[in-house]
């Protein structure tokens, strides 16, 4: 199953949803005295915003370790939002969007601890925001 990646790093563990923002159109509109209509200067597009939602997952023997594991996983993903790296984003359909930066990576809900036989799973819903620059 394709999972969206940024700079070849998976953005979420499971259940990846992607919301593609609109391409931003760059244009300058003016009105001219005595002339009907508007004067438009078109300058192409300037990228788009992309929102990725999903779930991060970590497993450990105890609830406390599972919580520590999921927080470490979250901080690791948040390191993608470093304000420096421009990379490729690959979407849930495998399409590549060039020249993206991660602008925001946050948990959107509470940690869910799910105990099993000898293992405790920790999951947390997350949301990443990317900006395509061109």
């Amino acid at each position, binding site marked *: *199953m394709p999972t969206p990646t940024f700079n070849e790093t998976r953005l979420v563990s499971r259940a990846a949803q992607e919301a593609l923002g609109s391409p931003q159109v760059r244009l300058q509109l003016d009105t001219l005295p005595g002339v009907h209509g508007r004067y438009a200067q078109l300058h192409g597009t300037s990228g788009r915003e992309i929102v990725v939602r999903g779930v991060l997952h970590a497993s450990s023997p105890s609830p406390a370790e599972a919580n520590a594991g999921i927080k470490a996983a979250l901080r690791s993903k948040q390191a993608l939002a470093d304000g420096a790296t421009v990379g490729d984003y690959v979407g849930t359909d495998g399409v590549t969007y060039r020249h993206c930066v991660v602008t925001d990576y946050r948990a959107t809900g509470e940690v*869910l601890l799910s105990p099993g036989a000898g293992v405790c799973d920790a999951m947390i819903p997350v949301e990443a925001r990317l900006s395509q620059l061109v």
Partner: protein
Amino acid sequence: MSEPYQVFSDVTDVTLAGESLPGVRRIAVSRHRSTLRAAGDEDLYERVARAGRWRVEGEIDLLDPAIAKALESARGSLAFTWRDSGGTSRVVTIAGVSIVSTELGAGHRMTPSARMSFLAESPDGATDPVSVA
């Protein structure tokens, strides 16, 4: 989820926060778990459908509205003796009980009654608030 809902009838020696609670007809405990559900863009079925932490709450039905009213802000352990289906007496203790609502019923030629709803908290986040000895 071994015990999703349990009704204790035939209870005696009921105490709440150290106070005696006479005339209890029934104590019901329900247990629910929080859930996390999610699916991806190309999933036909939910990719994440997990049950998480327990929420334990319940109700105490008793005959005396005055006692229920007096204990409407009680907080502490709820303990009682319950005779199980095999006839064995067992002591049930529910830790960290907080009363959240009290409904009083009284009317002409009507048996008075009261229902107290409660929440139960775990002492350490890992221990089941309900213990049966």
